[in-house]
């Protein structure tokens, strides 16, 4: 029965791709049914009704045993619930959002493919199975980002996303190989990991595996693809680039924590990467004008938090924040989506304004999401971020202060976009004529806003699902610091953007995203293009011309020389003849 989790979305994807493409309504129905079914199965598993099935052996050769099975421990159950739940809501939301797009059948097929591979990552029992679905998630994100493939920017963004993920997967695969070489198995088996314990390979394996997370969860330096991934339709951004796919990296870290904890150096590297990514992303977010890009950088920043939590050896904090973040970030993206839908895909917040009055439901739900993300006490964001700050305080005080400052920044940029987009006077005609989105898009907003509020409390059970509440080492200073940071951010945001009509602070460094894209374009592309051009020239001329044609030339040269000997000169023949005769005579009778 548990196989349904994987089979339902896969069959739906296969059916849509093979047969149902010309019938949009049918393929939408099949896809939504599949994701609903997956959610119900996940619910069954969470309530313990459904057990883990027997594993199938995929490859069984001497020295290597890869199997396709399911681990349904508490970590997986929580993640399954969150992913299938949010996915189902987004499927419903997409019905409305993609209503008039001609390719919507293909869209739902790709959504199902994504859902299947995401579930695959969650339930995988060994590294290779996780790697398989890891790449499939990359493929489906490539397809979904490049959904409007006519748009050059979308096509480029899709390619950029896939390549960045691929670099991450390269590190991930090397990590798997190192782990397999030292521990003899690819399964998630803490016992076997003792093979890694003492030897110097432990940090290497851990950091290589972390590369996979850096690629997938858009940590610096492999983060450049996430903002461009906003080229995809908003439900895609909501599902993939907020709730699920990017969270896969953090989930993977928690799943293989038994490898990471063997090397403290690796953990501190992970913590610092997370911390820096959170800070940098938050700084950039304050200066972005496109509403989806702000949310993208905010996701990157929250992911930084989660990686920081894992780095500080507290996977429960990371998973807690991951779940709550999944809810309110999906909510924010869908809220933004319904605004874009109403404003005919106008994404620049400075051309919006006053939308709140026209779209009350969206405004309220978006406000709740923003508040939760900012970390207003009482909402889910506050509790989960609190855990992370506690963990950071325990390990690296510097990182704690960085995280606190980032929390302030988060509050700042969230108030900025909420005020500018929803309040004040409408700045363009489109903003004036905005009207509320249909209920099919509203319903998920409501559900998610409810979840965003209650998810933080213990009765909701996330804590219990994650196996107990780490009560010890509650440093009283932390809640105070985070509270002041949030208040600071809120007031600063309110003051600067209360009745602002255009951007008040211009910091080009943040606005140009720390010039990462330019640096990459200059180094990676230039280096690669130049060396490729050079090698192509070398291959064509040196290997192709000199060696191959050279060989042919030498042969024809030899022929030419021999021709000269047969010059038709009588006396020459006589001479050669005599020379030969004399030579042989001498040879025969020798000295």
């Amino acid at each position, binding site marked *: 029965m548990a196989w349904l989790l994987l089979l339902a979305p896969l069959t739906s994807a296969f059916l849509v791709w093979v047969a149902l493409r010309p019938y949009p309504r049918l393929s939408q129905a099949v896809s939504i049914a599949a994701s609903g079914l997956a959610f119900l199965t996940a619910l069954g598993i969470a309530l313990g009704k459904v057990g883990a099935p027997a594993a199938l052996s995929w490859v069984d050769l001497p020295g290597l045993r890869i199997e396709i099975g399911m681990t349904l421990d508490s970590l997986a159950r929580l993640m399954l619930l969150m992913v299938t739940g949010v996915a189902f809501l987004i499927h419903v939301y997409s019905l409305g959002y993609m209503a008039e797009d001609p390719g919507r059948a293909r869209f739902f097929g790709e959504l199902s493919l994504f859902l299947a591979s995401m579930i695959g990552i969650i339930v995988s029992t060994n590294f290779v199975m996780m790697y398989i679905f890891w790449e499939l998630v990359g493929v489906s994100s490539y397809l979904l980002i490049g959904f409007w493939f006519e748009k050059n920017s979308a096509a480029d963004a899709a390619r950029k996303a896939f390549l960045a993920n691929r670099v991450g997967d390269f590190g991930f695969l090397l990590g798997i190989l190192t782990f397999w070489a030292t521990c003899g198995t690819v399964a998630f088996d803490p016992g076997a990991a003792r093979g890694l314990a003492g030897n110097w390979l432990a940090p290497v394996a851990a950091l290589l595996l972390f590369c996979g997370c850096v690629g997938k969860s858009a940590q610096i330096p492999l983060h450049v693809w996430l903002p461009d991934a906003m080229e995809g339709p908003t439900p895609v951004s909501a599902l993939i680039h907020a709730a699920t796919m990017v969270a896969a990296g953090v989930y993977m870290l928690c799943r293989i924590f038994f490898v990471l904890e063997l090397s403290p150096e690796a953990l501190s590297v992970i913590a610092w990467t997370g911390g820096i990514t959170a800070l940098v992303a938050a700084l950039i977010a304050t200066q972005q004008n496109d509403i989806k890009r702000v949310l993208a950088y905010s996701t990157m920043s929250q992911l930084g938090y989660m990686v920081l939590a894992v780095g500080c050896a507290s996977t429960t904090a990371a998973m807690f924040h991951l779940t709550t973040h999944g809810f309110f970030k999906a909510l924010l993206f869908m809220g933004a989506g319904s605004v874009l839908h109403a404003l005919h895909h106008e994404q620049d917040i400075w051309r919006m304004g006053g939308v709140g009055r026209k779209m009350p439901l969206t405004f309220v739900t978006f406000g709740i999401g923003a508040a939760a993300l900012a970390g207003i006490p009482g909402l889910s964001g506050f509790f989960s971020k609190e855990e992370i700050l506690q963990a950071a305080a325990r390990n690296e005080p510097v990182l704690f202060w960085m995280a606190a400052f980032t929390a302030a920044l988060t509050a700042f940029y969230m108030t900025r976009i909420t005020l500018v987009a929803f309040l004040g006077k409408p700045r363009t005609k489109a903003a004036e004529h905005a009207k509320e989105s249909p209920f099919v898009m509203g319903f998920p907003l409501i559900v998610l806003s409810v979840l965003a509020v209650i998810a933080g409390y213990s009765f909701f059970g996330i804590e219990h699902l994650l196996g107990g509440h780490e009560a010890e080492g509650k440093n009283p200073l932390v809640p105070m610091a985070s509270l002041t940071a949030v208040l600071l951010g809120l007031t600063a945001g309110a003051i600067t953007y209360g009745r602002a009509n255009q951007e008040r602070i211009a910091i080009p460094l943040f606005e140009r995203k720390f010039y990462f894209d330019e640096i990459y374009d200059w180094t990676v592309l230039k280096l690669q293009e130049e060396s490729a051009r050079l090698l192509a020239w070398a291959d064509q001329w040196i290997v192709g011309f000199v060696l191959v044609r050279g060989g042919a030339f030498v042969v024809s040269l030899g022929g030419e020389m021999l021709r000269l000997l047969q010059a038709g000169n009588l006396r020459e023949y006589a001479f050669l003849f*005599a020379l030969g005769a004399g030579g042989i005579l001498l040879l025969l009778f020798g000295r």
Partner: protein
Amino acid sequence: MGTPTLGHYLVLSGLLFAIGLAGVIVRRDLLIMYMCLEIMLNAANLSLVAFSRFSHQVRGQVLVFFVITVAAVEVAVGLALLVSLYRMKRTTKAEEITALKF
């Protein structure tokens, strides 16, 4: 100087043959080449006679007899060719007659 032995005669005929061959290579005129050809033939005759003499068999001399006849035939035909060649090409220099060379 002692009486000449077989060796002396053979060396003599060898030298004569070498001179004949050298002549063919050195001179460019076809006629002279012919004469050198004759020299080489006579060198062969000399060694034949020397062998027949020192091995006490007359057979060698019969062979020389045949060689002389063949030489005569060869000269006749050769010179006829030379004449018709001369009539066509007005020269007997070996270099000019290279029609066979492509």
